[in-house]
């Protein structure tokens, strides 16, 4: 049974932030949910899909975030409640639609959950999505606790319906991915009746009146913000220092204040509705303090908006000192931690605080270095991408014209590092590898003689690489697209996609065949198994030699993690210790020093390579590269 669909009002359960958001949506009677996977947001749709059948929902993995938002907007236009979720990059993709949807307005409650990834732990970028709320004149809610994650999501639906606007809920990694107690409310089971009222067309155009209407709605949103229970103050009436925070900053700030024992000196203004600001509440507290500190993750959004508000009212408020990201008090990039807040407050309040012995960090590092094996960010044992990049490296070196690989978003993005032998030379947004290739492929007339390759995963192909391929064909570009088909959206947790033959809720779906699509676009397509290194290298070299047109090499091999859940090893692999050349001329540890699959290790005492039985997935690729045929594979 679905964890988030328990019909147990009043019960307190442990939920991940993303599960709490999903629960909030269910408690609000959501009917349509859509997303494209992206950490740290993926578990929202993951949880809702598990509740889909029981709660009679439509839940889908859409091909990209813009389509996801459109699917959910359709539900809203038809009077149903809908939720779409995404990571910060996803909002960039969906932004074009969102910044028109705000003008056309919504009917059924429409909630856009964006989970930001401070520090870019599982992203190519670090970005604050909150700015989109300001650009789009949209209400923005920032839950700070797991309970709030549920409750505010639920509230967001009714707020959306009250205003006729999409409502943004902004989470961050430590809210989405941490777990806490959540008290459940009632689980309604509304009977849905979808109908699009054709007498009320949803038109963004003409923008002049609709933009004006939007501003009126935002004015009304301010009223809701002023009375929201998610904005509150805790501290003395006239604090020495006023700390204004939102989202994850709240817990960090609370912890810092308690640890320092400065509850009677510091006032905490915690805001849950950060756009539009509850202006009266903020002004009231600004009046009481001369020194103000902002604690928030990623950009100084709150900080700048409060300063803007202060500027408007400075004649009444008098002189203030503001500390935050602008002053350097709080780092301008990377995740915030309780330590960062503690250390900032310590300096400002001149409090001595020693949470742990001074040499704790160095001792911990020392202890960890003995116990924890050093491990670089890299591909799993048996990952087809390692084999792919080995072939890429070989093919580009043999070709010898400084060919290069344009990267894309997915596990194979690690091709920029040691695990992919540093072959990938760019990484930006979904589909950008193929897009850049379409551009590089036009530069021959300006003297570019280097072969152009792009990588792209199966899921990424459907998401955003297809338009780039269409563009390349239409405008006559020349490049080779390596389509790494591992039959999963692997990096975000193996979500299905249009090539996998099943939907988010596990139902059968038609397979949209990559080869057929690419061929129908007029590309020359070839299929290869990346585990067959020689054939893959040859196929790449053949494509590279003929510089004309768009060629797609589909490297088909299931993700090693997906495979290992379904079946046993392909091969039993072992190293013949007699034959292993080890460090001598003729090998010099090719498998453990260069190929570096984690399934292999170097035995210092014997000077030979060995298979790590616990890690090896039996792909057998190392047997192909061993120059002494010492690594032997037998069908398992």
């Amino acid at each position, binding site marked *: 049974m679905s964890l988030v669909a328990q019909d147990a009002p009043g019960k307190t359960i442990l939920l991940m932030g993303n599960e709490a958001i999903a629960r909030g949506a269910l408690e609000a009677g959501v009917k349509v949910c859509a997303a494209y996977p992206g950490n740290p947001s993926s578990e929202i749709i993951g949880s809702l899909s598990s509740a889909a059948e029981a709660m009679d929902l439509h839940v889908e993995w859409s091909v990209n975030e813009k389509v996801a938002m459109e699917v959910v907007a359709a539900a809203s236009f038809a009077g149903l409640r809908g939720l779409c979720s995404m990571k910060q990059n996803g909002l960039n993709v969906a932004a074009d639609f969102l910044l028109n949807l705000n003008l056309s307005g919504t009917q059924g409650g429409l909630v856009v959950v964006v989970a930001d990834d401070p520090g870019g732990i599982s992203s190519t970028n670090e970005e604050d999505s909150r700015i989109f709320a300001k650009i789009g004149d949209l209400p923005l809610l920032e839950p700070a606790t797991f309970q709030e994650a549920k409750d505010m999501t639920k509230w967001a639906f009714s707020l959306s319906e009250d205003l006729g606007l999409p409502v943004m809920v902004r989470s961050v990694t430590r809210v989405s991915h941490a777990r806490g107690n959540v008290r459940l409310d009632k689980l309604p089971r509304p009977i849905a009746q979808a109908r699009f009222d054709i007498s009320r067309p949803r038109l963004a155009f003409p923008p002049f009146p609709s933009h004006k209407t939007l501003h009126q709605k935002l004015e009304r949103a301010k009223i809701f913000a002023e009375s929201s229970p998610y904005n509150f103050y805790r501290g003395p009436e006239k604090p020495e220092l006023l700390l204004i925070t939102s989202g994850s900053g709240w817990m960090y700030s609370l912890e810092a204040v308690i640890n320092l024992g400065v509850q009677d000196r510091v006032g905490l203004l915690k805001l849950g509705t950060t756009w539009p600001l509850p202006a009266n509440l903020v002004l009231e507290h600004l009046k009481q303090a001369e020194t103000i500190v902002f604690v928030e993750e990623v950009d100084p959004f709150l900080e700048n908006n409060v300063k803007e508000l202060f500027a408007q009212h400075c004649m009444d408020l008098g002189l203030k000192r503001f500390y935050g990201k602008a002053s350097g008090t709080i780092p301008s990039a990377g995740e915030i931690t309780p330590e960062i807040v503690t250390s900032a407050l310590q300096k400002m309040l001149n409090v001595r605080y020693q949470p742990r012995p001074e040499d704790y960090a160095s001792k911990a590092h020392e202890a960890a270095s003995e116990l924890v094996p050093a491990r670089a960010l890299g591909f799993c044992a048996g990952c087809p991408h390692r084999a792919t990049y080995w072939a890429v490296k070989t093919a580009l070196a*043999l070709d010898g014209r400084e060919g290069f690989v344009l990267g894309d978003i997915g596990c194979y993005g690690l091709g920029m590092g040691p695990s992919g032998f540093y072959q990938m030379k760019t990484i930006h947004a979904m589909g950008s590898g193929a897009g850049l290739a379409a551009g590089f492929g036009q530069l021959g007339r300006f003297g570019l003689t280097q072969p152009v390759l792009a990588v792209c995963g199966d899921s990424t192909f459907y998401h955003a690489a297809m338009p780039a391929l269409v563009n390349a064909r239409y405008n006559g570009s020349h490049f080779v697209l390596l389509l790494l088909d591992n039959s999963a959206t692997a990096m975000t947790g193996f979500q299905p996609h249009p090539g996998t033959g099943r939907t988010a809720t596990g139902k059968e779906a038609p397979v949209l065949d990559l080869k057929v699509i690419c061929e129908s676009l007029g590309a020359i397509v070839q299929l290869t198994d990346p585990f067959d290194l020689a054939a893959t290298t040859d196929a790449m070299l053949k494509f590279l030699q003929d510089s004309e047109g768009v060629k797609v090499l589909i490297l088909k091999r299931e993700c090693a993690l997906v495979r290992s859940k379904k079946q046993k090893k392909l091969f039993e692999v072992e190293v013949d210790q007699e034959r292993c050349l080890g460090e001598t*001329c003729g090998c*010099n540890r090719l498998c453990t020093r260069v190929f570096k699959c984690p399934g292999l290790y170097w035995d210092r005492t014997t000077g030979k390579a060995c298979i790590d039985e616990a890690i090896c997935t039996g792909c057998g690729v190392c047997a192909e590269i061993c120059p002494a045929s010492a690594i032997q594979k037998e069908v398992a």
Partner: protein
Amino acid sequence: MNRGLKGLESKVLDRGQCAACGACLSLCPYLRSWRGRAVKLHDCDLSEGRCFSFCPRSEVDLDALHRSVFGKGYEDIETGPVRRVVMAKAPALEFRDKAQNGGVVSALMAMAIDEGRIQAAILTERDAELLPQGRIAETKEEVLTCAGSSYVTGYTLEALNRGPWQGEERIGVVGLPCQVLALARMKASPLEKRTPVDRVDLVVGLFCTWALDYRPFAGFLKKRFGNTPIHKLDITPPPDRLLHVTVGNEVHQIPLDEIRGFIRPSCQVCLDMTSELSDLSVGTVEGEDGWNTVIVRTERGEDLLRQAESKGVLETRAYPEDKWAHLKAASILKKQRGLKALKDVQDKYVTLPQKAIDSLMKEVAP
């Protein structure tokens, strides 16, 4: 200084000094050749390796090498050790048909296999796109598929390293001066070899003035003749200075100056026109179409030539004095050019005793 792949890279590969002999290939997974280039695929950090040790351009002490092959140092400065020099040709048409000149090399190798002197010959074969590569020939028919030249070096010695070998074969090698030099390096190397180089019993060297780099030359020919197969390439001796290209039934003439740009840079520092470290060397005879020059250097070479003469495999004639003087002068001229090119190179690819350098530079070219 690194005497492994790193050294090879910085001193030879990165400086365009690879002679394309093939001695470093199929020894390890780090180096591979493709379309006429030896390519480093991965970094290797060994301080000493066979690639460097075997290379004819890494660190060659010609005096020591001559000592290891002939038991005496670099003394015969004009054309290397000479026991006998003759004009020769193979009377059998099957050899002369495909051959560059008199078919001597093919006839000798076929005979060596027939007579059981060797069981396998390392030769150079060209594919339909003229890409040369080393191959193992074990029959006369296989020897014949390798007849002729494309003036492109082709990693011949890779075939020796690659095999496959049964383990007992006696092996003969036909190579260009750089390849014959590399073979001597391979034999003399103190490193553990794990190659059958010690079973190489016969070394037939070819004369060479320079060789071409495959990729640009093949590109040039393709641009000129499209995909039509090229049957034969032949360079006519001075004063013509023409490359004859046989395409279909037509022979096209290309001035040599048009292809000089494709000469491998490593040929500029070469001090050997006549494959001095061989048992027996074979080249053209200026002004005598259909004949070869044969220089016998070792007892083994002499033995082979005598057998060929007695069996009628080769027809020989005394070598005209004026042509011999001319050949020696051409050889010295190549050495002088090579020494000049080496003069400003800090860490020399090839070293000679100072005495030999002085004598060579004193010689006046005719």
